[in-house]
């Protein structure tokens, strides 16, 4: 089941690797040099959280702002002299707390997730500007950077290991813990989920807290990599996250999630970006290419569900 659902993204990934390597043998080595591996790991982590949200037939537009907020707070706490481990814990808690806040907006006010997280995106971004007065906070902490970009076992960046651990945890939660199946059930048919005795409010809070935690982690990793933090961290990440989920084969109609596909799609997008770069294609074309890939992915999803025949693609 897992293999069949992910076949398309795996094949696309292999094709991209082969094509770019043929075009330029330096393609594979260039991935690491340019920090592509680290940024891919970071976008994978938010994408994994987003997979659960989309499987629940919801959306979270605030992940980018949560990334920025946790990075900024962490930078300021480090500057204030708090120990690194405590800063990391607090940064993660802030992410989880903001996610929980999104969940509460949705559950208590009955807002659609799209609207609730659009509002919180704006508010969190406003909070960032108030804290920083629009300025960049620098981080001088080599140990913090090493936790993310330091090489493990010779040449694997630590970020990859972090992403692998997150994948293992979320995979277990999604497929092996009742909570994960309840997330999918709510996305598949909320009426049947309620009929089966599932507490929809509690599952919603849990899922949004989890993606908040993922976004908080991504933010900390970005801050550690860049050694500074400002409100541009995470900008646009929500769209990248949604794109990798959809390209990875998870339907926007909810009910199912393809975590492995999400990982493949995150790597796919990053390699296309690196490949275009090394093939001397102007980075101005990147967004054009990504948009086209997203449209193809949505068409494939529509064909698979058979909605194209009726001439409508309800999202």
């Amino acid at each position, binding site marked *: 089941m897992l293999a069949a659902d992910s076949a398309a993204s795996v094949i696309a990934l292999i094709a991209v690797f082969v094509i770019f390597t043929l075009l330029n043998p330096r393609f594979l080595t260039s991935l690491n040099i340019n920090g592509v591996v680290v940024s891919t790991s970071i976008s994978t982590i938010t994408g994994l959280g987003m997979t659960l949200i989309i499987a629940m037939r919801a959306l979270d537009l605030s992940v980018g702002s949560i990334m920025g907020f946790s990075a900024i707070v962490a930078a300021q706490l480090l500057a204030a002299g708090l120990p690194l481990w405590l800063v990391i814990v607090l940064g993660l808690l802030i992410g989880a707390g903001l996610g929980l806040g999104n969940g509460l907006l949705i559950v208590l006010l009955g807002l659609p997730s799209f609207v609730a997280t659009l509002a919180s995106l704006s508010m969190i971004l406003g909070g960032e500007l108030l804290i920083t007065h629009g300025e960049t906070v620098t981080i001088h902490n080599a140990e913090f950077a090493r936790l993310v970009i330091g090489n493990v076992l010779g040449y694997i960046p630590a970020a990859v290991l972090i992403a692998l651990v997150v994948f293992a945890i979320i995979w277990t939660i999604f497929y092996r813990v009742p909570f994960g199946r309840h997330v999918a*059930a709510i996305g598949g048919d909320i009426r049947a989920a309620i009929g*089966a005795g599932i507490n929809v409010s509690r599952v919603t809070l849990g899922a949004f807290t989890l993606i908040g935690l993922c976004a908080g982690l991504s933010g900390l990793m970005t801050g550690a990599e860049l050694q500074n933090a400002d409100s541009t961290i995470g900008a646009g990440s929500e769209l990248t996250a949604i794109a990798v989920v959809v390209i990875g084969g998870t339907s926007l109609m909810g009910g199912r999630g393809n975590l492995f596909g999400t990982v493949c799609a995150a790597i796919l997008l990053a390699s296309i970006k690196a490949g275009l770069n090394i093939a001397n294609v102007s980075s101005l074309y990147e967004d054009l290419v990504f948009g086209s890939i997203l449209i193809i992915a949505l068409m494939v999803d529509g064909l698979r569900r058979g909605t194209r025949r009726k001439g409508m693609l309800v999202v």
Partner: protein
Amino acid sequence: MAGLVNDVDKPAGDASPAAMRATGMRKQFDGVEVLHGVDLELRAGEVHALLGENGAGKSTIINLLSGRLRPDNGHIELLGQPVSFRNPMSARRAGVSVIAQELEVVPTLTIVENIFLGAEPTSYGLIRWVEARRQVIAVLQELGVATDLNRIVGTMSVADQQLVEIAKAIVGRFRVLIMDEPTSALNLAETERLFKIVRRLRADGVAVLYVSHRLWEVFDLADRVTVLRDGTRIMTDEVARTDLDTVIGAMLGSKSSLAPHAHLPRPAVPAAMTQGPPALQLEAVSCADVLRDICLSVCPGEVVGLAGVLGSGRTELTEAIYGLRNIDAGTVWLNGVVAATSEPKQALCHSVFLLPEDRKLEGIFGHLDVRENVILGYDPAHNPETPPRERGLRPISFAAERTAFDQMRAALGIRCSGPGDRITSLSGGNQQKALFARAALAHPRVLLLSEPTRGVDVGAKEEIYAAIEGFAARGIAILVSSSELSELLRLASRIYVLRAGRLVAEVATAGASEGDILKLMAG
């Protein structure tokens, strides 16, 4: 009969003790009481059938017993202990399992995930899928579902999904099983397998409450039967000590003893109209596994009824004629020509119009006002003698629309404060009249009506009947599908009876009684 009701009050310690006992159940909705203090006792190891016409209160009492609704009054005992269910889950935990009438499976999850949804076996927080599979294999074999447990439920047939729904209810431990129309989507073989399971559960001491419109199932399976009418319990008796006529009599009450509706004056069909070809004629029409070899005809100016229980194919037949369902075999003649209606658009070209069963979902446009709902699709240039054309981009004058709306409002007596009223602010009856107005503006020659008075209050019903008779008087052929037999007897000159997708009888309403038709429907 009155003496038999006292059976329920036998003291505890009887040979078969009460597994579940509900006493004095009352429930009202919007100030209208629908259940007037009903008592019901389910004994361990019995199949107890619950019967009654639509609206008798069967669903309400099932919802009270399964925790979907809370009673306004009365109490429920489970194995002698008073219980109060907060939600379906607490009822399930206490040992009350329900097979709902509507499918409640998640289409995107697998069979085994659906069966254990909300009650997954876990250890250390992780789901024990191996254990779950082990438990479910035997149940699925018994039900005859031979398929991969990892199959996504949404890819299975409706009957198989229904079997998964049943498996969901009978996996694990429970003392009471409530089955609400469990066989409506099943074929004969599947029904037989289900009966075998029910008999096995009965032997294991489970109390089964069985709700079905198919009376033969009840006499085949049940030990005792309770009949509800208008929210009151009419009888409870052992099946062996009663018969079909008694049960039908209890369901219908005084209505069954009344002389059939022969005394009502019925407008005769003008002879001139019946001489031409029938406006609607079906020859051996079959449709997937829901309709088989249907032959019927409706003449211009004639009102013909369509009767059948839930799942008999009544709704599907009107949908097939209107092009909402593919017809696999057979011929549809409309106004004397063979018609291929694979889309409603084509049916409209043959001047066929359908008023759908679910008015809110398929009929009205809730966000539009009354005028817009009525004139939707209206073409003032349309000559009633010819089929309608695509209106395309040709503009229509507001004045023409307004005139048409005002005419219809007066003719059908649509009560609203003005044409700009939101359609949803109108009563059900007036919404339905607006749909009749839309139909009238399309100049139909064949009008298909599905449950024309559902959710309509008594006063507006008569007005809608008058409207239907008005349509017929203008020479329109009308096919009415309804779950209310009294309505069909009131309106139609003939009634076709459907059972399990087949036409089993054609009854002339003059001289027919509700009981006769009910027997034909039940088989």
